[in-house]
């Protein structure tokens, strides 16, 4: 569930921006011959509704109906006792409470006699109960997948989303940048990082740690009292007002691993200057590895937000290469072995017209990795 700061900030995300996003989507829907769009949301798949309304559910599920024109209708299974909170995070939509949001939205569709073809975002993934409620409440309406229409309308991030993402990234960088050399237990280390993130206003955060990279780079979420090794990695995904970033860093506490971190960091900062748009990132990473001949690539992956998932894998070394469209966000994760020593990193980028740009200053990244490496 979400239990960090959840509040709409009209300065960070003006109502006019939300309206513009909806209007752009409505235009795309009309062009694709859809009379309306239905979007499902829960805490795992909130991103599309957040993009249009600023609202993220902390619990339960809901539907957003984007009509052909005019403001959306938000039907939620959350009860009326949290109505004030919902309004504080969802400034524009009409809000309807019902244990069966699908019935409410279906009845709205039926009431509008001009609605015949309704798009559904990620229709195959729509929960069966909601799908049955929707279908049972309409007549003379057909539903069809409209994921492509939605993703094409929201593919490039706007200035406001970029600022929210940058803020989220600064929170993560700050929390990962704190020196905590005295902490020996992994649970305590993650607890301190989470504390910093939540005190800074993170909406939610997911943390994991590989406590001893020499024994493996698998990230664990609940390490408890497991000891923190001399060479470990921490991964943080965190949200600020619905905008998610992920960063992963290695930390070294003795000289041998410090050299590995330093060498890989140097390679990374050189490589990211060379990533250009319009070509597969996997191919470019492999080319960039020529500058670090003793290293072998274990994996790479790019996550981004195109529909309902805040962070969805869009390409990876085990699937397809990734060519981002200009203006999109990309969280790039890379794992290497340098002289049989693993090294991992994840950081957010904006895919520019010409090349990839770090979402937030990468100079600090480098200081962080080295600065945290206290004996």
């Amino acid at each position, binding site marked *: *569930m*979400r*239990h*960090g*700061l*959840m*509040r709409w900030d009209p300065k960070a995300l003006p109502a006019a921006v939300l309206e513009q996003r909806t209007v752009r989507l409505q235009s795309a829907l009309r062009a694709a011959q859809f009379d309306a769009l239905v979007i499902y949301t*829960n*805490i*795992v*798949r909130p991103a599309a509704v957040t993009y249009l309304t600023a609202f993220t559910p*902390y*619990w*339960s*599920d809901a539907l957003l109906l984007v009509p052909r024109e005019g403001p959306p209708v938000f039907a939620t299974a959350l*009860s*009326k*006792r*949290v*109505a*004030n*909170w919902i309004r*504080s995070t969802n400034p524009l939509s009409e809000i309807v409470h019902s244990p069966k949001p699908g019935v409410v939205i279906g009845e709205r569709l039926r009431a509008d006699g001009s609605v015949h073809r309704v798009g559904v975002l990620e*229709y*195959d*993934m*729509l*929960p*069966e*109960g909601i799908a049955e409620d929707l279908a049972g409440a309409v007549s003379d309406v057909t539903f069809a997948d409209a994921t492509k229409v939605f993703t094409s309308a929201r593919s490039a991030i706007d200035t406001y989303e970029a600022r929210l993402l940058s803020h989220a990234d600064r929170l993560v960088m700050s929390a990962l940048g704190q020196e905590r050399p005295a902490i020996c*237990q992994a*649970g*305590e280390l*993650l*607890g*301190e990082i*989470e*504390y910093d*993130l*939540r*005190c800074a*206003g993170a909406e939610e955060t*997911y*943390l*994991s740690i590989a406590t001893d990279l020499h024994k493996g780079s*698998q*990230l*664990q*979420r*609940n*390490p*408890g*009292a497991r000891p923190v090794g001399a060479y470990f990695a921490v991964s943080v*995904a965190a949200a600020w007002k619905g905008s998610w970033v992920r960063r992963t860093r290695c930390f070294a506490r003795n000289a041998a691993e410090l050299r590995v971190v330093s060498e890989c960091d140097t390679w990374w900062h050189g490589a990211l200057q060379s990533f250009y748009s319009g070509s597969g990132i996997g191919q470019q990473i492999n080319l960039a590895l020529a500058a670090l001949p003793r290293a072998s690539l274990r994996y790479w*992956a790019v996550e981004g937000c195109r529909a309902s998932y805040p*962070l969805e*894998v869009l390409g*990876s070394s*085990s*699937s397809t290469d990734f060519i981002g469209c200009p203006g999109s966000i990309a969280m790039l994760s890379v794992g290497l072995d340098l002289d049989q020593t693993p090294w991992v990193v994840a950081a957010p980028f904006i895919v520019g017209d010409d090349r990839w740009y770090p979402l937030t200053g990468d100079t600090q990244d480098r200081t962080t990795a080295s600065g945290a490496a206290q004996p």
Partner: protein
Amino acid sequence: MSDPLLLERRAALGDAMAAAALDSFLVYGNAWQGDYFRYVAGVRVLEGQGVAVLRNDGEVRVYLDSVADAEAGKAEANGAEITYAPNLLEAVTTELYKAGNQRIGAAPFRLLPRRLAARDHAITLTDQTALLDRLLMMKSPLESAAIRRAAVLADAGYEVFRSAVRPGRLDYEIVAEVERFYRTSGVEDNFMIIGVGGPEVRGMAPPSGKRAKARDMVITELTPCVDGYYAQICRTLVVGEPSDVQRRVFAIYRDAMEAGIAAVRPGATAADIARAENDVFLEHDLGIYVTSEYTRVRGHGLGLFPDSKPHILEDVSTMMEPGMSLIVHPNTYNPEVGYVVLGDTVEVTESGCDVLCNTPRELFSVPA
């Protein structure tokens, strides 16, 4: 596989499948409703969605569409084959097609992705949610022990919460204190909502940036998770000395909770417990505040989900049986002081119930 809880659960489901003549059982889960999935898979799904299939020969296959979930799942040895499946539906339908013409049960059917549930292909899933609901409600001694461990941490978490509240403190900073404690203590998850203020507070929700000030009531519900099992505690405190009105109103909630707990025994229904709580409000002419306009439930089951069946409501006829775990909480709005919460986790025994929370049932006060 070394998790005896998981072994026990899979064996119980295997027996139920045999009795229902099912060849396989498919469960779906996400970070919101993860209990059906967790029951079989043993791993937690946090950033994406998961499907697990248990066959009647004991083989378990787990499909996760988040690479982070899959990596974390592989780190937890649990005897299941874990597959990262970015196209979850494709991977699962392929698996089901391979299984051929089997009798496959599924739960929770209502949340199952539409394409999996659809009857327009060769695979037919039957809704067996009720079968698994029954298993989820009835706790074994091992499960009960996990809930008791979680209840200890619910008490300890409330101590941290109380210490964190002071004038000027932001609601999300208070939550941060609790989460730090829980991460350090090995608690994998915590369902937590909060309310800060007075009569304007009509329910608990995530933090919205409110600062605690003198005379505010600060309400919370903590639900730590240990080994997958949740216990819950609800308490109310006042910043500064409680007023006479706050004390008088709180006493109604204490009476209602104690009436509800007294009603918990084998053979009683969820409705009996709800009615015992609600009657106290009726005696004080506060009956309107136990309706759905102001509150949701008068308690609920606890286990692998922080809001399990049965819901404690006057129209729920589920009968209490030894081994069931639930929270009794008469939480609702009061027009004089705002939303008040008070609740303890209990376990149904042969003769009544054990109360698992040890935090005093008092209206706490912190220095203003």
